[in-house]
């Protein structure tokens, strides 16, 4: 498979995530769109790692082919930590203003 097909797919998924952040007002949906963008980048990293596995540099070393997949693990680690804290913040916001509409979070405006 051509690398361009994977780049196009990842860009499309990323863009859908961006559009979701722009058109929704529900804080949880916006958060889920961020997760979708992270996943698009993960997919692209794995695709690049498999592209790199065919190169001569990678064939000389045993572990070079899996470096990008380790990066994906760390992205997943950071995403899991981010979700736990982010959802705690959303729950706290819901407890204070009794809505998850992001338009209510404009107290810093004036």
């Amino acid at each position, binding site marked *: 498979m051509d690398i361009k097909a994977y780049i196009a797919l990842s860009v499309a998924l990323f863009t859908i995530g961006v559009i979701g952040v722009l058109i929704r007002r529900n804080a*949880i949906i916006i958060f889920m769109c961020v997760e979708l963008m992270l996943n698009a980048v993960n997919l692209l990293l794995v695709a690049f790692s498999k592209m790199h596995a065919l190169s001569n540099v990678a064939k000389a070393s045993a572990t070079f082919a*899996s470096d990008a997949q380790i990066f994906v693990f760390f992205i997943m680690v950071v995403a899991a930590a981010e979700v736990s804290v982010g*959802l705690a913040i*959303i729950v*706290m916001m819901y407890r204070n203003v009794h809505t998850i509409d992001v338009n209510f979070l404009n107290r810093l405006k004036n």
Partner: protein
Amino acid sequence: MNITTIIFILLSVMALGSAIMMITSKSPVHSVLWLIIVFFAISGHYILLNAQFLAIVNIIVYAGAIMVLFLFVVMLMNLNAETEPIKNYRLQLVGVVSGCSLLLIIIMALNRLDVENVVEMKVGDGGLIKVLGMTLFKNYVLPFEISSVLFLSAMIGAVVIGKKDMIADKK
């Protein structure tokens, strides 16, 4: 057109269609379920790229743990299509147009790129548990340990933020 291409197209259509359904569906519970389908499609892509361990981890961590957390919060707040805040139509249109412009710009840039690299599919041992474990515990031990500290701080942070009368106590 061989079977790999057909599976690739099938999984891509599944991922993109579910992602579009996710951002357009009214009910937050439906959005969560559509996002789980997206994650399963991406896991299928990982299997197609012979990154099997990553596929399993993606299903366990994302579809299993993170989405259950989202679903739990959605059900805790009792959100449904009636309580869903709707952005006004003009702002939605602006969002879609600007997102599509981003897509268009990157796709046009991609079009002018003249690389002929191909991706290795269904073969290669870079994604197997043995190779990944060797890489992780030989070259990336320090980041691995630091990530455990990150998890600990995230856990403490979530507990502190979620504590019941934090704001009332401050007053």
